Protein backbone atom coordinates (compact mmCIF):
# COMPACT_ATOMS: atom_id res chain seq x y z
CA UNK A 1 0.00 0.00 0.00
CA UNK A 2 1.36 3.34 -1.00
CA UNK A 3 2.03 5.85 1.70
CA UNK A 4 -0.37 8.75 1.42
CA UNK A 5 -0.63 11.99 3.26
CA UNK A 6 -4.00 12.87 4.63
CA UNK A 7 -4.42 16.52 5.39
CA UNK A 8 -6.58 17.01 8.46
CA UNK A 9 -8.58 20.20 8.36
CA UNK A 10 -7.44 22.40 11.19
CA UNK A 11 -10.10 24.49 12.88
CA UNK A 12 -10.21 27.95 11.46
CA UNK A 13 -12.19 31.03 12.28
CA UNK A 14 -11.85 33.50 15.05
CA UNK A 15 -13.75 31.54 17.72
CA UNK A 16 -11.52 28.48 17.62
CA UNK A 17 -8.29 30.34 17.03
CA UNK A 18 -8.85 32.82 19.83
CA UNK A 19 -9.52 29.95 22.30
CA UNK A 20 -11.91 32.31 24.05
CA UNK A 21 -15.27 30.63 23.44
CA UNK A 22 -13.84 27.16 24.00
CA UNK A 23 -12.21 28.34 27.20
CA UNK A 24 -15.46 29.88 28.41
CA UNK A 25 -17.37 26.70 27.64
CA UNK A 26 -14.79 24.64 29.51
CA UNK A 27 -14.97 27.01 32.47
CA UNK A 28 -18.73 26.64 32.52
CA UNK A 29 -18.49 22.84 32.60
CA UNK A 30 -15.98 22.76 35.45
CA UNK A 31 -17.83 25.50 37.34
CA UNK A 32 -21.06 23.52 37.10
CA UNK A 33 -19.41 20.44 38.60
CA UNK A 34 -17.81 22.57 41.30
CA UNK A 35 -21.08 24.26 42.19
CA UNK A 36 -23.12 21.06 42.31
CA UNK A 37 -20.54 19.14 44.34
CA UNK A 38 -19.65 21.96 46.69
CA UNK A 39 -23.20 23.06 47.43
CA UNK A 40 -24.35 19.45 47.75
CA UNK A 41 -21.59 18.79 50.27
CA UNK A 42 -22.36 21.99 52.13
CA UNK A 43 -26.03 21.20 52.71
CA UNK A 44 -25.21 17.56 53.47
CA UNK A 45 -26.82 15.98 50.41
CA UNK A 46 -23.92 13.87 49.23
CA UNK A 47 -26.19 11.51 47.33
CA UNK A 48 -27.28 14.24 44.93
CA UNK A 49 -23.74 15.29 44.10
CA UNK A 50 -21.61 13.75 41.37
CA UNK A 51 -18.79 12.83 43.77
CA UNK A 52 -17.51 9.32 43.16
CA UNK A 53 -15.13 9.14 46.14
CA UNK A 54 -15.83 6.54 48.81
CA UNK A 55 -14.52 7.71 52.20
CA UNK A 56 -13.21 4.24 52.92
CA UNK A 57 -13.07 3.49 56.63
CA UNK A 58 -16.39 5.24 57.23
CA UNK A 59 -18.11 4.13 54.04
CA UNK A 60 -17.67 0.68 52.58
CA UNK A 61 -18.67 -0.71 49.25
CA UNK A 62 -21.09 -3.60 49.92
CA UNK A 63 -19.58 -6.91 48.84
CA UNK A 64 -21.32 -8.99 46.21
CA UNK A 65 -23.39 -11.85 47.66
CA UNK A 66 -20.96 -14.49 46.38
CA UNK A 67 -17.85 -12.80 47.79
CA UNK A 68 -15.43 -15.34 49.28
CA UNK A 69 -14.39 -14.29 52.75
CA UNK A 70 -12.87 -16.03 55.76
CA UNK A 71 -13.67 -19.75 56.13
CA UNK A 72 -16.09 -21.14 58.67
CA UNK A 73 -17.15 -24.61 59.67
CA UNK A 74 -20.87 -25.37 59.83
CA UNK A 75 -22.59 -27.18 62.68
CA UNK A 76 -24.87 -30.20 62.96
CA UNK A 77 -28.28 -30.06 64.60
CA UNK A 78 -26.64 -31.03 67.88
CA UNK A 79 -24.00 -28.32 67.57
CA UNK A 80 -21.16 -30.67 66.64
CA UNK A 81 -18.96 -29.99 63.63
CA UNK A 82 -20.55 -31.09 60.33
CA UNK A 83 -17.22 -32.13 58.86
CA UNK A 84 -16.78 -35.90 58.48
CA UNK A 85 -13.03 -35.66 57.76
CA UNK A 86 -13.44 -37.06 54.25
CA UNK A 87 -10.23 -35.21 53.22
CA UNK A 88 -11.80 -33.82 50.02
CA UNK A 89 -10.89 -30.22 50.80
CA UNK A 90 -7.19 -30.69 51.67
CA UNK A 91 -6.92 -32.85 48.57
CA UNK A 92 -8.37 -30.23 46.23
CA UNK A 93 -6.72 -27.26 47.94
CA UNK A 94 -4.08 -25.86 45.53
CA UNK A 95 -2.28 -24.03 48.32
CA UNK A 96 -2.16 -26.95 50.78
CA UNK A 97 -3.45 -24.69 53.53
CA UNK A 98 -5.93 -27.12 55.12
CA UNK A 99 -4.73 -29.62 57.70
CA UNK A 100 -7.11 -32.31 58.91
CA UNK A 101 -6.31 -35.02 61.44
CA UNK A 102 -9.31 -37.37 61.66
CA UNK A 103 -10.49 -39.38 64.61
CA UNK A 104 -13.25 -41.88 65.14
CA UNK A 105 -16.60 -40.35 65.93
CA UNK A 106 -17.95 -41.29 69.38
CA UNK A 107 -21.54 -42.06 68.31
CA UNK A 108 -22.23 -44.57 65.57
CA UNK A 109 -24.17 -42.46 63.09
CA UNK A 110 -20.98 -41.22 61.36
CA UNK A 111 -17.62 -42.85 61.11
CA UNK A 112 -15.13 -39.99 61.38
CA UNK A 113 -14.82 -36.44 62.57
CA UNK A 114 -11.80 -34.07 62.53
CA UNK A 115 -9.69 -34.04 65.65
CA UNK A 116 -7.69 -31.15 64.24
CA UNK A 117 -9.01 -28.85 61.51
CA UNK A 118 -6.65 -25.99 60.72
CA UNK A 119 -6.60 -23.51 57.87
CA UNK A 120 -3.58 -21.29 57.29
CA UNK A 121 -5.24 -18.10 56.08
CA UNK A 122 -1.88 -16.72 54.96
CA UNK A 123 -1.44 -19.58 52.49
CA UNK A 124 -5.06 -19.64 51.35
CA UNK A 125 -5.51 -18.26 47.84
CA UNK A 126 -9.26 -17.78 48.38
CA UNK A 127 -10.14 -19.92 45.35
CA UNK A 128 -13.17 -21.51 46.97
CA UNK A 129 -12.41 -25.02 45.69
CA UNK A 130 -12.71 -26.46 49.23
CA UNK A 131 -16.28 -25.21 49.45
CA UNK A 132 -17.13 -26.77 46.10
CA UNK A 133 -15.45 -30.02 47.01
CA UNK A 134 -17.20 -30.41 50.36
CA UNK A 135 -19.92 -33.11 50.05
CA UNK A 136 -21.76 -32.20 53.26
CA UNK A 137 -21.83 -28.40 53.42
CA UNK A 138 -19.33 -28.35 56.26
CA UNK A 139 -16.93 -25.66 55.04
CA UNK A 140 -18.09 -22.33 53.71
CA UNK A 141 -16.50 -18.99 52.75
CA UNK A 142 -19.61 -16.82 53.05
CA UNK A 143 -18.63 -14.84 56.17
CA UNK A 144 -17.86 -11.64 54.22
CA UNK A 145 -14.90 -11.07 56.57
CA UNK A 146 -11.35 -10.53 55.40
CA UNK A 147 -8.43 -12.51 56.71
CA UNK A 148 -7.51 -10.43 59.73
CA UNK A 149 -4.09 -8.81 60.11
CA UNK A 150 -1.99 -10.49 62.77
CA UNK A 151 1.27 -9.73 64.50
CA UNK A 152 2.56 -13.30 64.48
CA UNK A 153 2.16 -15.60 61.52
CA UNK A 154 0.92 -18.37 63.76
CA UNK A 155 -2.10 -16.26 64.69
CA UNK A 156 -3.29 -16.46 61.10
CA UNK A 157 -3.72 -20.23 61.38
CA UNK A 158 -7.32 -20.80 62.38
CA UNK A 159 -8.10 -23.93 64.37
CA UNK A 160 -11.35 -25.84 64.63
CA UNK A 161 -12.78 -23.69 67.42
CA UNK A 162 -12.03 -20.45 65.60
CA UNK A 163 -13.59 -21.79 62.42
CA UNK A 164 -16.63 -23.06 64.32
CA UNK A 165 -17.11 -19.75 66.13
CA UNK A 166 -18.59 -18.22 62.98
CA UNK A 167 -20.45 -21.41 62.10
CA UNK A 168 -24.16 -22.01 62.34
CA UNK A 169 -26.55 -24.84 61.58
CA UNK A 170 -26.71 -25.75 57.94
CA UNK A 171 -30.05 -25.70 56.17
CA UNK A 172 -29.06 -28.94 54.47
CA UNK A 173 -30.77 -32.02 55.89
CA UNK A 174 -28.55 -33.97 58.24
CA UNK A 175 -27.30 -37.16 56.59
CA UNK A 176 -28.88 -36.27 53.28
CA UNK A 177 -32.40 -37.14 52.18
CA UNK A 178 -31.70 -40.67 50.96
CA UNK A 179 -31.61 -42.16 47.50
CA UNK A 180 -35.19 -41.32 46.54
CA UNK A 181 -35.25 -37.55 47.36
CA UNK A 182 -36.28 -36.63 43.81
CA UNK A 183 -39.47 -38.60 44.08
CA UNK A 184 -40.17 -37.16 47.50
CA UNK A 185 -39.64 -33.56 46.29
CA UNK A 186 -42.11 -34.15 43.42
CA UNK A 187 -44.71 -35.57 45.78
Amino acid at each position, binding site marked *: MAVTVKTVARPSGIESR*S*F*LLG*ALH*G*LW*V*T*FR*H*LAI*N*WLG*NLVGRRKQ*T*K*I*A*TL*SYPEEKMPYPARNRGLHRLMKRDDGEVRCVACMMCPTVCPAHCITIVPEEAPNGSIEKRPRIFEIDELRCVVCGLCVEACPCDAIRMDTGVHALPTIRRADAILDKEALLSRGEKSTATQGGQGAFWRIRVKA
Partner: protein
Amino acid sequence: MLASLLSYGSPGFLALSAAAKSVFFVFLFSLPLAGILTWMERRQSAMMQDRLGPNRANIGPFRFWGIPQFLADAVKMIFKEDFVPPEANKFLFALAPVLAVAPVFIASAIVPFGAPLCLDRLTEVVPGGACAKPVDLQAAHLDAGLLFYFAISSLTVYGAALAGWASHNKWALMGGLRASSQMMAYEVTMGMAVMAMFLLYGTLEPGAMVASQGDWPWQWGIAGIPQIIAFVLFLTSAIAESKRTPFDIPEGESEVIGYFVEYSGMRFGMFYLGEFVEIIVSSALMVTVFFGGWRFPGAELLASHLPNLLFVLVTVLVWSLKVFLFCSFQLLIRWTLPRFRADQLLRLGWQRLLPISIANVVLAAGWILLRR
Protein backbone atom coordinates in the same frame (compact mmCIF):
# COMPACT_ATOMS: atom_id res chain seq x y z
CA MET B 1 8.98 63.60 72.74
CA LEU B 2 7.57 60.27 71.67
CA ALA B 3 4.13 61.78 71.23
CA SER B 4 5.44 64.46 68.88
CA LEU B 5 7.42 61.85 66.97
CA LEU B 6 4.29 59.78 66.43
CA SER B 7 1.74 62.58 66.02
CA TYR B 8 -0.54 62.44 63.02
CA GLY B 9 1.21 63.31 59.77
CA SER B 10 4.75 63.15 61.15
CA PRO B 11 7.33 60.94 59.41
CA GLY B 12 7.39 58.60 62.40
CA PHE B 13 3.64 58.14 62.24
CA LEU B 14 3.71 57.55 58.49
CA ALA B 15 6.45 54.94 58.81
CA LEU B 16 4.68 53.19 61.65
CA SER B 17 1.29 53.13 59.93
CA ALA B 18 2.83 51.94 56.67
CA ALA B 19 4.58 49.15 58.58
CA ALA B 20 1.34 48.21 60.32
CA LYS B 21 -0.52 48.13 57.01
CA SER B 22 2.21 46.02 55.40
CA VAL B 23 2.16 43.62 58.32
CA PHE B 24 -1.59 43.32 57.97
CA PHE B 25 -1.43 42.72 54.24
CA VAL B 26 1.48 40.28 54.26
CA PHE B 27 1.14 38.38 57.53
CA LEU B 28 -2.54 38.59 58.35
CA PHE B 29 -3.95 38.44 54.84
CA SER B 30 -1.60 37.17 52.11
CA LEU B 31 0.23 34.40 53.94
CA PRO B 32 -2.80 32.79 55.60
CA LEU B 33 -4.77 33.12 52.37
CA ALA B 34 -1.85 31.64 50.40
CA GLY B 35 -1.83 28.72 52.81
CA ILE B 36 -5.54 28.26 52.48
CA LEU B 37 -5.21 28.52 48.69
CA THR B 38 -2.79 25.58 48.63
CA TRP B 39 -5.49 23.57 50.33
CA MET B 40 -8.23 25.12 48.22
CA GLU B 41 -6.44 24.40 44.98
CA ARG B 42 -6.55 20.71 45.79
CA ARG B 43 -10.03 20.75 47.28
CA GLN B 44 -11.54 22.87 44.51
CA SER B 45 -9.88 20.87 41.76
CA ALA B 46 -11.19 17.72 43.43
CA MET B 47 -14.72 19.10 43.50
CA MET B 48 -14.42 20.08 39.85
CA GLN B 49 -13.36 16.54 39.02
CA ASP B 50 -16.06 14.85 41.15
CA ARG B 51 -13.63 13.89 43.90
CA LEU B 52 -13.50 14.92 47.55
CA GLY B 53 -9.93 16.12 47.96
CA PRO B 54 -8.00 16.53 51.21
CA ASN B 55 -10.55 16.58 54.03
CA ARG B 56 -8.78 14.59 56.74
CA ALA B 57 -6.21 16.92 58.32
CA ASN B 58 -7.48 18.08 61.70
CA ILE B 59 -6.54 19.72 64.96
CA GLY B 60 -7.81 17.31 67.56
CA PRO B 61 -11.55 16.96 67.05
CA PHE B 62 -11.77 20.00 64.76
CA ARG B 63 -11.57 19.13 61.12
CA PHE B 64 -12.62 22.41 59.39
CA TRP B 65 -13.20 20.57 56.08
CA GLY B 66 -9.50 19.66 56.04
CA ILE B 67 -8.17 23.21 55.98
CA PRO B 68 -5.36 22.36 58.50
CA GLN B 69 -3.86 20.37 55.60
CA PHE B 70 -1.71 23.37 54.72
CA LEU B 71 -0.20 23.37 58.22
CA ALA B 72 0.64 19.70 57.84
CA ASP B 73 2.15 20.43 54.42
CA ALA B 74 4.28 23.24 55.86
CA VAL B 75 5.55 20.99 58.66
CA LYS B 76 6.37 18.32 56.10
CA MET B 77 8.24 20.81 53.90
CA ILE B 78 10.28 22.14 56.81
CA PHE B 79 11.38 18.69 57.94
CA LYS B 80 12.28 17.41 54.49
CA GLU B 81 15.91 17.11 53.45
CA ASP B 82 17.24 20.42 52.19
CA PHE B 83 19.25 19.15 49.26
CA VAL B 84 21.69 21.39 47.40
CA PRO B 85 23.27 19.90 44.27
CA PRO B 86 27.05 19.62 44.81
CA GLU B 87 27.88 21.53 41.62
CA ALA B 88 25.30 24.25 42.24
CA ASN B 89 26.19 27.85 42.95
CA LYS B 90 25.31 27.85 46.65
CA PHE B 91 24.68 31.56 47.02
CA LEU B 92 22.46 32.01 43.98
CA PHE B 93 20.73 28.71 44.72
CA ALA B 94 19.72 30.08 48.11
CA LEU B 95 18.89 33.52 46.73
CA ALA B 96 16.53 32.39 43.94
CA PRO B 97 13.54 31.33 46.09
CA VAL B 98 13.76 34.59 48.02
CA LEU B 99 13.77 36.53 44.76
CA ALA B 100 10.71 34.61 43.67
CA VAL B 101 8.69 35.54 46.75
CA ALA B 102 9.92 38.85 48.14
CA PRO B 103 9.12 41.13 45.15
CA VAL B 104 5.50 40.02 45.17
CA PHE B 105 5.14 41.04 48.79
CA ILE B 106 6.82 44.36 48.08
CA ALA B 107 4.57 44.99 45.08
CA SER B 108 1.50 44.36 47.24
CA ALA B 109 2.24 47.59 49.14
CA ILE B 110 0.32 49.70 46.64
CA VAL B 111 -2.99 47.84 47.00
CA PRO B 112 -5.70 49.69 48.95
CA PHE B 113 -7.64 47.19 51.03
CA GLY B 114 -10.34 49.22 52.72
CA ALA B 115 -12.07 52.54 53.17
CA PRO B 116 -10.01 55.32 54.80
CA LEU B 117 -9.88 55.12 58.59
CA CYS B 118 -10.76 58.31 60.49
CA LEU B 119 -8.24 58.23 63.27
CA ASP B 120 -9.88 60.95 65.39
CA ARG B 121 -13.46 59.76 64.97
CA LEU B 122 -13.22 55.97 65.12
CA THR B 123 -16.45 55.44 67.03
CA GLU B 124 -18.49 58.16 65.29
CA VAL B 125 -20.47 57.97 62.08
CA VAL B 126 -18.50 59.72 59.35
CA PRO B 127 -20.69 60.05 56.24
CA GLY B 128 -18.71 60.52 53.06
CA GLY B 129 -15.44 59.78 54.88
CA ALA B 130 -14.72 63.46 55.46
CA CYS B 131 -12.54 63.82 58.52
CA ALA B 132 -9.48 65.66 59.79
CA LYS B 133 -7.10 62.73 60.21
CA PRO B 134 -7.80 60.11 57.55
CA VAL B 135 -5.52 57.08 57.28
CA ASP B 136 -5.68 55.37 53.91
CA LEU B 137 -5.62 51.59 54.18
CA GLN B 138 -2.82 51.38 51.65
CA ALA B 139 0.76 50.76 52.68
CA ALA B 140 2.40 52.95 50.03
CA HIS B 141 0.84 55.96 48.36
CA LEU B 142 2.84 56.10 45.14
CA ASP B 143 1.96 58.24 42.15
CA ALA B 144 3.73 55.70 39.96
CA GLY B 145 1.30 53.14 41.41
CA LEU B 146 0.90 50.34 38.91
CA LEU B 147 4.26 51.13 37.32
CA PHE B 148 5.81 50.33 40.70
CA TYR B 149 3.94 47.04 40.66
CA PHE B 150 5.35 46.19 37.21
CA ALA B 151 8.85 47.27 38.14
CA ILE B 152 8.95 45.17 41.29
CA SER B 153 6.97 42.14 40.22
CA SER B 154 9.09 41.74 37.09
CA LEU B 155 11.98 41.01 39.46
CA THR B 156 10.45 37.59 40.07
CA VAL B 157 11.79 36.62 36.65
CA TYR B 158 15.25 36.74 38.24
CA GLY B 159 14.05 34.22 40.80
CA ALA B 160 13.05 31.81 38.06
CA ALA B 161 16.06 32.43 35.82
CA LEU B 162 18.57 32.24 38.69
CA ALA B 163 16.95 29.08 40.04
CA GLY B 164 17.41 27.50 36.64
CA TRP B 165 20.98 28.69 36.26
CA ALA B 166 22.22 28.04 39.80
CA SER B 167 20.89 24.48 39.90
CA HIS B 168 23.62 23.27 37.52
CA ASN B 169 21.03 21.22 35.70
CA LYS B 170 20.35 21.52 31.99
CA TRP B 171 16.63 20.91 32.38
CA ALA B 172 16.37 23.54 35.06
CA LEU B 173 18.32 25.98 32.92
CA MET B 174 15.97 25.43 29.98
CA GLY B 175 13.04 25.92 32.35
CA GLY B 176 14.53 29.18 33.55
CA LEU B 177 14.95 30.34 29.95
CA ARG B 178 11.35 29.47 29.17
CA ALA B 179 10.25 31.34 32.29
CA SER B 180 12.12 34.49 31.30
CA SER B 181 10.92 34.47 27.70
CA GLN B 182 7.34 33.94 28.84
CA MET B 183 7.39 36.63 31.50
CA MET B 184 8.96 39.14 29.13
CA ALA B 185 6.26 38.43 26.54
CA TYR B 186 3.32 38.85 28.86
CA GLU B 187 4.61 41.77 30.87
CA VAL B 188 4.32 43.96 27.78
CA THR B 189 0.71 42.96 27.25
CA MET B 190 -0.04 43.51 30.92
CA GLY B 191 1.47 46.98 30.78
CA MET B 192 -0.52 47.86 27.67
CA ALA B 193 -3.75 46.62 29.28
CA VAL B 194 -3.08 48.84 32.26
CA MET B 195 -2.13 51.68 29.91
CA ALA B 196 -5.71 51.69 28.63
CA MET B 197 -6.98 51.89 32.19
CA PHE B 198 -4.49 54.67 32.90
CA LEU B 199 -5.97 56.68 30.04
CA LEU B 200 -9.48 56.11 31.35
CA TYR B 201 -8.71 56.89 34.98
CA GLY B 202 -6.13 59.61 34.37
CA THR B 203 -4.05 58.19 37.20
CA LEU B 204 -1.84 55.23 38.00
CA GLU B 205 -2.37 55.45 41.75
CA PRO B 206 -4.57 52.53 42.91
CA GLY B 207 -6.05 54.52 45.80
CA ALA B 208 -7.17 57.26 43.44
CA MET B 209 -8.55 54.63 41.06
CA VAL B 210 -10.74 53.19 43.81
CA ALA B 211 -11.76 56.70 44.88
CA SER B 212 -12.98 57.49 41.37
CA GLN B 213 -15.11 54.34 41.16
CA GLY B 214 -18.66 54.13 42.48
CA ASP B 215 -20.49 51.67 44.71
CA TRP B 216 -22.56 49.99 42.01
CA PRO B 217 -21.14 47.51 39.48
CA TRP B 218 -21.90 49.83 36.54
CA GLN B 219 -19.77 52.49 38.23
CA TRP B 220 -16.82 50.14 38.60
CA GLY B 221 -13.74 50.17 36.40
CA ILE B 222 -14.94 47.21 34.33
CA ALA B 223 -17.97 49.08 32.89
CA GLY B 224 -17.17 49.78 29.23
CA ILE B 225 -15.87 47.98 26.15
CA PRO B 226 -12.17 48.91 26.33
CA GLN B 227 -12.25 48.19 30.06
CA ILE B 228 -13.60 44.67 29.50
CA ILE B 229 -10.93 43.98 26.87
CA ALA B 230 -8.30 45.38 29.22
CA PHE B 231 -9.56 43.11 31.99
CA VAL B 232 -9.36 39.97 29.85
CA LEU B 233 -5.86 40.93 28.74
CA PHE B 234 -4.80 41.72 32.30
CA LEU B 235 -6.22 38.46 33.63
CA THR B 236 -4.52 36.43 30.90
CA SER B 237 -1.15 38.02 31.39
CA ALA B 238 -1.47 37.90 35.18
CA ILE B 239 -1.92 34.13 34.98
CA ALA B 240 1.03 33.95 32.58
CA GLU B 241 3.08 36.01 35.04
CA SER B 242 2.31 33.67 37.89
CA LYS B 243 3.44 30.78 35.64
CA ARG B 244 0.42 28.60 36.21
CA THR B 245 -1.57 26.41 33.86
CA PRO B 246 -2.41 27.06 31.02
CA PHE B 247 0.88 28.98 30.99
CA ASP B 248 2.97 26.64 33.15
CA ILE B 249 5.57 25.50 30.63
CA PRO B 250 8.40 27.02 32.74
CA GLU B 251 7.57 24.35 35.32
CA GLY B 252 5.88 21.74 33.15
CA GLU B 253 6.32 19.17 35.91
CA SER B 254 5.07 16.16 34.04
CA GLU B 255 6.76 16.70 30.66
CA VAL B 256 9.47 19.32 30.27
CA ILE B 257 10.87 19.65 33.82
CA GLY B 258 10.92 23.10 35.30
CA TYR B 259 13.42 25.52 36.76
CA PHE B 260 12.96 24.34 40.35
CA VAL B 261 13.57 20.67 39.64
CA GLU B 262 16.59 20.63 41.99
CA TYR B 263 14.78 22.33 44.85
CA SER B 264 13.40 20.43 47.78
CA GLY B 265 11.89 21.07 51.18
CA MET B 266 11.03 24.61 52.17
CA ARG B 267 13.06 26.12 49.31
CA PHE B 268 10.63 24.48 46.92
CA GLY B 269 7.87 25.54 49.28
CA MET B 270 8.86 29.17 48.77
CA PHE B 271 8.46 28.91 44.99
CA TYR B 272 5.12 27.26 45.61
CA LEU B 273 4.14 29.95 48.11
CA GLY B 274 5.29 32.71 45.76
CA GLU B 275 2.97 31.36 43.10
CA PHE B 276 -0.01 31.64 45.40
CA VAL B 277 0.96 35.04 46.72
CA GLU B 278 1.21 36.17 43.10
CA ILE B 279 -2.33 34.93 42.56
CA ILE B 280 -3.49 36.91 45.58
CA VAL B 281 -1.72 40.12 44.62
CA SER B 282 -2.83 39.96 40.99
CA SER B 283 -6.39 39.26 42.17
CA ALA B 284 -6.15 42.21 44.52
CA LEU B 285 -5.01 44.41 41.65
CA MET B 286 -7.84 43.21 39.43
CA VAL B 287 -10.31 43.98 42.19
CA THR B 288 -8.73 47.40 42.67
CA VAL B 289 -8.53 48.45 39.05
CA PHE B 290 -11.61 46.79 37.56
CA PHE B 291 -14.01 45.85 40.35
CA GLY B 292 -14.25 48.83 42.65
CA GLY B 293 -11.70 47.84 45.29
CA TRP B 294 -13.43 47.78 48.66
CA ARG B 295 -16.59 49.38 47.27
CA PHE B 296 -19.83 47.43 47.18
CA PRO B 297 -23.50 48.26 46.52
CA GLY B 298 -24.88 50.08 49.53
CA ALA B 299 -21.51 51.15 50.93
CA GLU B 300 -22.49 54.81 50.99
CA LEU B 301 -25.68 54.03 52.92
CA LEU B 302 -23.71 51.90 55.36
CA ALA B 303 -21.12 54.65 55.88
CA SER B 304 -23.83 57.04 57.07
CA HIS B 305 -25.13 54.58 59.68
CA LEU B 306 -22.17 52.60 61.02
CA PRO B 307 -19.37 53.90 63.23
CA ASN B 308 -16.26 54.54 61.15
CA LEU B 309 -14.21 51.66 62.58
CA LEU B 310 -17.00 49.15 61.96
CA PHE B 311 -17.60 50.45 58.46
CA VAL B 312 -13.90 50.15 57.62
CA LEU B 313 -13.90 46.58 58.92
CA VAL B 314 -16.88 45.77 56.68
CA THR B 315 -15.10 47.24 53.65
CA VAL B 316 -11.96 45.23 54.43
CA LEU B 317 -14.09 42.09 54.66
CA VAL B 318 -15.85 42.84 51.37
CA TRP B 319 -12.50 43.52 49.72
CA SER B 320 -11.13 40.23 51.08
CA LEU B 321 -14.17 38.39 49.77
CA LYS B 322 -13.72 39.92 46.32
CA VAL B 323 -10.04 38.98 46.26
CA PHE B 324 -10.92 35.49 47.45
CA LEU B 325 -13.46 35.08 44.65
CA PHE B 326 -10.88 36.14 42.07
CA CYS B 327 -8.34 33.73 43.52
CA SER B 328 -10.94 31.00 43.25
CA PHE B 329 -11.61 32.04 39.66
CA GLN B 330 -7.92 31.76 38.86
CA LEU B 331 -7.89 28.28 40.37
CA LEU B 332 -10.91 27.42 38.23
CA ILE B 333 -8.99 28.50 35.13
CA ARG B 334 -5.91 26.58 36.24
CA TRP B 335 -7.88 23.34 36.54
CA THR B 336 -9.89 23.79 33.35
CA LEU B 337 -7.57 24.79 30.52
CA PRO B 338 -4.80 22.55 29.20
CA ARG B 339 -1.23 23.75 28.90
CA PHE B 340 -0.01 25.64 25.83
CA ARG B 341 3.01 24.55 23.88
CA ALA B 342 5.97 26.91 24.25
CA ASP B 343 5.76 28.28 20.70
CA GLN B 344 1.97 28.63 20.90
CA LEU B 345 2.37 30.53 24.13
CA LEU B 346 4.85 33.00 22.67
CA ARG B 347 2.80 33.36 19.49
CA LEU B 348 -0.29 34.08 21.58
CA GLY B 349 1.65 36.62 23.62
CA TRP B 350 3.49 38.53 20.91
CA GLN B 351 1.23 38.09 17.87
CA ARG B 352 -2.26 38.08 19.35
CA LEU B 353 -2.46 39.68 22.77
CA LEU B 354 0.10 42.43 22.22
CA PRO B 355 -1.55 43.84 19.04
CA ILE B 356 -4.94 43.58 20.71
CA SER B 357 -3.69 45.40 23.77
CA ILE B 358 -2.16 48.18 21.66
CA ALA B 359 -5.41 48.47 19.68
CA ASN B 360 -7.23 48.61 22.99
CA VAL B 361 -5.20 51.63 24.06
CA VAL B 362 -6.35 53.38 20.87
CA LEU B 363 -9.90 52.22 21.54
CA ALA B 364 -9.74 53.57 25.07
CA ALA B 365 -8.57 56.93 23.77
CA GLY B 366 -11.49 56.97 21.32
CA TRP B 367 -13.82 55.94 24.15
CA ILE B 368 -12.73 58.96 26.17
CA LEU B 369 -13.38 61.25 23.19
CA LEU B 370 -16.86 59.74 22.71
CA ARG B 371 -17.79 60.00 26.37
CA ARG B 372 -16.78 63.63 26.55
